[in-house]
C-alpha cells in the first residue's frame, strides 16, 4: 500500500504539468479559435484563404512533428523556446486549428433569420455575433468540442519528447526503476479520472443549455 501511495505521489507531481499544459491550451486555443472562426465566416476572402491553409497544415501534420518543430526547429531562426513555452505554443496553435473548424461549422449552421432579426433590431456585427450567433453556435458545437477536450488530455503526454516530466513520464520513471507495470495502471487511472472530469463538465454544460430546446 505504501508502495502504491509513493507511486501515486510521484505521478501526482507529473500530473501538475499535464494540467498546466491542459489549461494553458484551453485558455489560449478557444478564444483564438473563436476569433479565427469569425474571420473565416465574416472576414475578407484572403483571410479565409489564409486560415484555410493554416488549418490544412496544422490538422494535416502530426502534433508530434509540430512539437519538434517549435522546440528544435525554431532554433534555426534564432528563436529558442523553453520546453513549456514550446509545448504551450504548439498545443495552442494545433488545437486552435481544430476548434476553429468546429466553431466555423457551428456559426454556419445558424439560420439566416437570426442575423436578419438582429439586423432589423439594428444590432451591429459584434453585438449580433457575441449575443445572438455565438451562444447558439457554441451550444451546437459542444459534442465535437468535448471530443477535442478529451483528446487533449491524452495528447499532453507527447511533451515527454521535448524532455518534460508529465504524468506519463513520472510513471515511466518508476517502471524503469522497479520494473513493474503498477505505475502504468495508476497512470491509466489518472487519465481516466481527468477525462471523466472533462466529460462531466461537458455533460453539465449540455444539460444547462438544453433548457431552450
Amino acid at each position: 500500500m505504501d508502495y502504491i501511495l509513493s507511486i501515486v505521489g510521484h505521478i501526482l507531481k507529473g500530473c501538475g504539468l499535464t494540467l498546466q499544459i491542459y489549461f494553458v491550451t484551453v485558455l489560449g486555443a478557444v478564444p483564438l479559435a473563436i476569433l479565427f472562426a469569425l474571420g473565416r465566416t465574416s472576414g475578407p476572402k484572403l483571410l479565409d484563404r489564409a486560415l484555410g491553409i493554416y488549418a490544412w497544415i496544422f490538422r494535416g501534420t502530426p502534433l508530434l512533428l509540430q512539437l519538434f518543430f517549435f522546440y528544435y526547429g525554431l532554433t534555426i531562426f534564432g528563436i529558442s523556446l523553453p520546453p513549456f513555452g514550446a509545448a504551450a505554443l504548439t498545443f495552442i496553435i494545433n488545437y486552435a486549428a481544430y476548434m476553429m473548424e468546429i466553431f466555423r461549422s457551428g456559426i454556419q449552421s445558424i439560420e439566416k433569420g437570426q442575423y436578419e432579426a438582429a439586423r432589423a433590431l439594428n444590432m451591429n456585427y459584434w453585438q449580433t455575433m457575441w449575443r445572438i450567433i455565438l451562444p447558439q453556435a457554441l451550444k451546437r458545437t459542444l459534442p465535437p468540442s468535448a471530443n477535442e477536450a478529451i483528446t487533449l488530455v491524452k495528447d499532453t503526454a507527447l511533451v515527454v519528447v521535448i524532455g518534460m516530466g508529465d504524468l506519463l513520464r513520472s510513471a515511466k520513471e518508476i517502471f524503469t526503476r522497479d520494473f513493474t507495470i503498477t505505475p502504468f495502471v495508476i497512470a491509466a487511472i489518472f487519465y481516466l479520472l481527468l477525462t471523466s472530469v472533462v466529460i462531466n463538465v461537458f455533460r453539465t454544460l449540455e444539460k444547462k443549455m438544453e433548457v431552450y430546446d
Partner: protein
Amino acid sequence: MSMVKLSNIHKYFGDVKAVDGVDLEVKPGEVVSIIGPSGSGKSTLLRCINQLETIDVGRVEIEGQPVIELQQDGHRAHFDKAKVLIAQKKLGMVFQHFNLFPHKTVLENIIEAPLVVNKENRKAAVTRAEKLLKRVGLADKHNAYPSQISGGQKQRVAIARALGMEPDILLCDEPTSALDPELVGEVLAVLRDLARAHMTMLVVTHEMAFAREISDRVIFMDQGKVLEDGSPESIFKNPKHQRIRDFISKMI
C-alpha cells in the same frame, strides 16, 4: 412628411428583376397592405426598406432622411452614417418565421435590443417589455423560451420585440403565413389593435379579408411592379386589371 418614401426601386437577383421600378409613399399612421401572387416581389420590396436587401437602383427615405441612393450607373450617394442609423431605428420588422432568439426567454428577446443597442437601463426596458407582453396577451409567458410556446404566441412575442425598440413604422413580412390556420386570428388581432392605434404599418400578406379590413391602402404587385395602388374598396371591388380580379377571386 412621408414616413417611408421609395423612389424607383430596383432589385435584381441575377437576371431576375425581383423589384422593377417601384415608387411608394407611406404617410404617418397609414396602414398599407401589399398583396399579389408569390414571387411578385412583395417581400423583397419590404426588405429593401430596412436594408435586409440592398437595392440596385433607387432611393429609400425614412421620415425625410435618405438612407440609401443608387443611380443607374452604380453611383452611390453618401449620407451621414449617424443620421442613417437614427432613421433605420424608426423601423421595426416582423418576419414570416418569427426569428425569435431561441436561447433567450420571451422577456430577454424583447429587452435585448433596447439594452444592447440603445443602452437603456434594464429596469426601464423590463417595465416596457412587460407592458408590451400584456398588450399582446402574453403577460404570463415572459420566462418561457420560444420553443415552449405556440407559433401564434411566437409571432406575438416577435411583434412585442419589434415594438420594444419603439419604432414609428412596422414592417410585417407575411406575419401569418407560417401559422396553423387556428392561430392566425390571434396574430391578426394584435396587428389590428396596432392599426387602430395608428401605428404606421406596411404589411405583406395573403390574408385578403384582413388586408381589406385594416388597410387604408392596398398595393397589388405583380412581376416586381406595382400594378395598382388604391383604397381597399377599389382594389377588392373594382380592380382595373383583370390580373387582380383573377387573383382576388382565387384567394377568397
